[in-house]
């Protein structure tokens, strides 16, 4: 039964999008229910990954491989390890919530919106499963098309600018990665990632490839200084688009680091680890300050995403320093693990934050912080969730936001206390920008008469927020199952770091 589970996970939402689309604009209710059905089925199928996967082994499992293009030796090959499974679960989980979240919010062509979401979900799962570089690239790029449409059709006033910037920026990065992949293909005769990982490469080759990959994935993550597309895309995207973008799509970038840079160019990765570490620290500290001064809630959370993703890249590359320079495998493991937990946690927290902003936006049609104030007086339940997610966003112990950041800071301390010092800044800055926003939006007196008219969240919105809240708290209080799921895979990755390829 598990032979084609991964294919099922990829193609179920994509094929499921067709009947949703066919439901037509005349029957929006049918389209919504069909989309929800497909999303729930996909989620259930993704849960089947857990029993099928042997977490103690940690290697790539549930492999599927078919010849795709015989004359090029390209395979349609899929496999997952603990890290991929965690990300796939995150994707399918968020997949349901964005469809529920958009239920009656999207009135214009709901069938196209739902279909685009489902296709996007399938493609993202594809990215997390692909073990052939060309297949990975195809999924990686194809993701842009539904997102482009989502932002462009259902987005805010400057949606065209934002979506074009998003598309061209991402395409710009990945096309150079494609050149790198072709180069590797001509050397190895295959796009198989496992073979590419074993391919000996000179330092010069590795350096070029490293920067080609870094450009592609850094734009996706996004890292400073190529992050400028993100605030625009987030601000203009519809709520669901922002949620998917922040919760899952950004993780594709860091996932790419794990699958391409770590195994294929480990020596260049080690040599230039300082570049990434410095950029990550800049993201954490500087972008934190940038977030502090935002007037637009979505922009604030978008910048905080950049800062939080800085922890992920920091955790991955601090592992290089620890393994290669200090030989400290244990701490490297911790840093890498922290990065992975942070990826999942940020998925929940940022998704929840964007959902909250979406809930308020649906009532007030503004995202400006100054237009709000005293929201807690009219929406107490909503206020409860908003404060919870804000706490998670600023890394309060007991929420998921704390676990990953703490692990990364600990590992950084082992590598270099100065790095840890800068990284720990986030605890202050993150709390500052998030809580200050909460203060201005929720607390205080109601100054804007429109706030009086805001209605408390309805059952549908409550469902979405409760789901996110449960995930955030579960991960914060008891992260062990997630860590166990990824543990063996992470240690294998860390061991790979130690292998010299020159």
């Amino acid at each position: 039964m598990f032979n084609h589970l991964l294919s099922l996970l990829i193609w179920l939402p994509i094929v499921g999008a067709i009947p949703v689309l066919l439901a037509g604009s005349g029957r929006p209710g049918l389209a919504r229910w069909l989309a929800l059905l497909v999303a729930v089925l996909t989620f259930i199928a993704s849960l089947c990954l857990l029993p099928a996967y042997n977490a103690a082994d940690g290697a790539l499992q549930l492999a599927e491989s078919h010849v795709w293009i015989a004359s090029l030796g390209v395979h349609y090959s899929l496999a997952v390890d603990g890290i991929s499974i965690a990300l796939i679960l995150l994707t399918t989980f968020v997949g349901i919530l964005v469809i529920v979240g958009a239920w009656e919010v999207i009135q214009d062509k709901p069938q196209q919106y739902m279909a685009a979401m489902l296709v996007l979900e399938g493609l993202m799962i594809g990215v997390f499963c692909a073990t052939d570089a060309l297949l990975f690239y195809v999924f990686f790029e194809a993701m842009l098309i539904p997102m482009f449409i989502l932002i462009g059709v259902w987005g805010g006033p400057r949606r065209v600018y934002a979506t074009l910037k998003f598309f061209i920026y991402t395409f710009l990065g990945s096309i150079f990665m494609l050149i790198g992949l072709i180069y590797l293909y001509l050397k190895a005769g295959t796009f198989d990632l496992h073979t590419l990982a074993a391919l000996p490469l000179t330092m010069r080759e590795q350096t070029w490839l490293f920067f080609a990959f870094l450009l592609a994935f850094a734009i996706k993550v996004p890292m400073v200084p190529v992050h400028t597309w993100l605030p625009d895309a987030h601000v203009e995207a519809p709520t669901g688009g922002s949620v998917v973008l922040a919760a899952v799509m950004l993780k594709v970038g860091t996932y790419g680091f794990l699958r391409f840079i770590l195994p294929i160019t480990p020596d260049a990765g080690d040599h230039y680890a300082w570049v990434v570490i410095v950029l990550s620290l800049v993201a954490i500290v500087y972008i934190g300050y940038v977030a502090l001064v935002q007037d637009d809630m979505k922009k604030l959370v978008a910048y905080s995403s950049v800062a939080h993703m800085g922890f992920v890249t920091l955790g991955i590359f601090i592992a290089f320093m620890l393994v290669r320079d200090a030989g400290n495998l244990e701490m490297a493991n911790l840093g890498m693990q922290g990065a992975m937990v942070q990826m999942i946690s940020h998925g929940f927290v940022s998704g929840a934050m964007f959902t909250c902003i979406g809930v308020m936006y649906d009532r007030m049609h503004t995202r400006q912080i100054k237009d709000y104030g005293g929201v807690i007086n009219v929406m107490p339940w909503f206020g409860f969730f908003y404060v919870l997610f804000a706490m998670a966003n600023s890394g309060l112990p007991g929420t998921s936001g704390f676990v990953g950041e703490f692990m990364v800071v600990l590992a950084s301390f082992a590598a270099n206390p100065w790095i840890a010092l800068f990284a720990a800044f986030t605890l202050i800055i993150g709390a500052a920008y998030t809580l200050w926003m909460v203060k201005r939006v929720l607390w205080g007196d109601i100054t804007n008469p429109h706030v009086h008219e805001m209605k408390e969240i309805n059952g549908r919105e409550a469902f979405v927020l409760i789901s996110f809240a449960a995930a955030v708290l579960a991960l914060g209080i008891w992260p062990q199952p997630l860590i166990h799921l990824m543990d063996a895979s992470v240690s294998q990755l860390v061991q790979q770091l130690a292998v010299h390829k020159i």
Partner: protein
Amino acid sequence: MPTFNDILIMLPEFYLVAAACLLLLLDAWMKPEQRNILHWVSILVLLVGIYLVVAGQPDVAVTAFDGMFVRDTAAEILKVFALLCTALIFVFSRPYLIDRKLYQGEFYTLMIFATIGAMLLVSAGNLVMVYLGLELLTLCSYGLVALNRDSPLSSEAAIKYFVLGALSSGMLLYGMSMIYGATGTLSLAQLHGAVAHAGMSPNLMTFGLIFMIVGISFKLGVAPFHMWIPDVYQGAPTAVTIFVASTSKIAAFGMAYRLLESGMGGMAGQWQMMLAVLAVASLAIGNLVAIVQTNLKRLLAYSTISHMGYLLLGLVNAGPEGYAAAMFYAICYALMSTAAFGVILALARAGFECEEIDDFKGLNQRSPWMAFLMMLAMFSLAGVPPMFGFFAKLLVLEAAIHAGMLWLAIVGAVFAIIGLIYYLRVVKVMYFDKPVEGLELRPQADGTLRTVLSLNALLLLGLGLYWGPLLGWCRAAFAS
């Protein structure tokens, strides 16, 4: 003396000539209201032509009429797609032609004769045959471009096409005569052998080669010999533009392959660099100038120029893989053109050409399916996976890197990003903009047109997901 075997080898061509002549007669005998019969018979003629090409496919390359005519796998594949594209054009064009009172027998016969020219060109085994096929193809095209004789734009385009086409034919012929003077042979096979030997006058050969490349570049529409492309694309009736952008491009690739590899393969070291320079010029001019266009046909014209630059990236490789990549690209481009222009044809009505980009505003509101098909074509042209166009680009980039021209592949990649801008603009107009009030944007009611157009556009997605067999054929054509 021609033998029966010679005729058998050329059977598809002989059959098409006979069929085209019969169609001429049929047109003369039939009343105007019976023209639908002519339409369907023409399509049938082309489909039978495809059958004859495929059914009579020889296992090894064979020649007829003392090497004038070559029938090998490369020629077979190109012929199949040339015939297929022409058949698609017939299906897509009918409502357009009816609306413009151009629904006449000439359109069909001229197109079939032009296709025969394309078939002779891709099968040429002799410089004379190259020239003969080329002239048959282009002379018919001149007439087709001028088909709408009351339109000044159309006539202007035809004259430009004719003058520049005659000039380039002259150049080609001049180059051929130099090569003939240097080697004393017109046969491509003997030429290939002769070029490899020393003792030839190198200057004369190089000059001849340069003039031939000018001729080829003109046919492909490669910068700086691209001047005619935008005017002809815009001025010609869309039903003819689609031909110039599909069948004609397949033929142009065939001609480039015959002359450069079959004939002058020994001088690859010299023409590789020339093609690389031409490719860069095409990529730059095509992509940059396309950004500022407001007319979709003109935009697609500049996009053609850039696509031919990519095709050259494959030819630059000068090896079997490179030719296969370039052939794959030519086929891919032809199918993308038929889809893109097909949507324009389907949306055009009497008195409304639907060729300005603004005409497509809000198409998703009016006709979501047409917008979707056009989006597939645009993303394919832009080279975004998983569309067909991406894999064609992948192969030519690989060919260029394999030839040791990493810089050229990087140039190609950079211009792929720049090219993205104008393709995305078309998608933006269709999906993100509000429709213009009072403008009725409804596709033609012709059921066949809609079905075949949908298949054509969906094929771009289908071949993107599974393009192995096609690449296998292209590779088999050049494996030796």
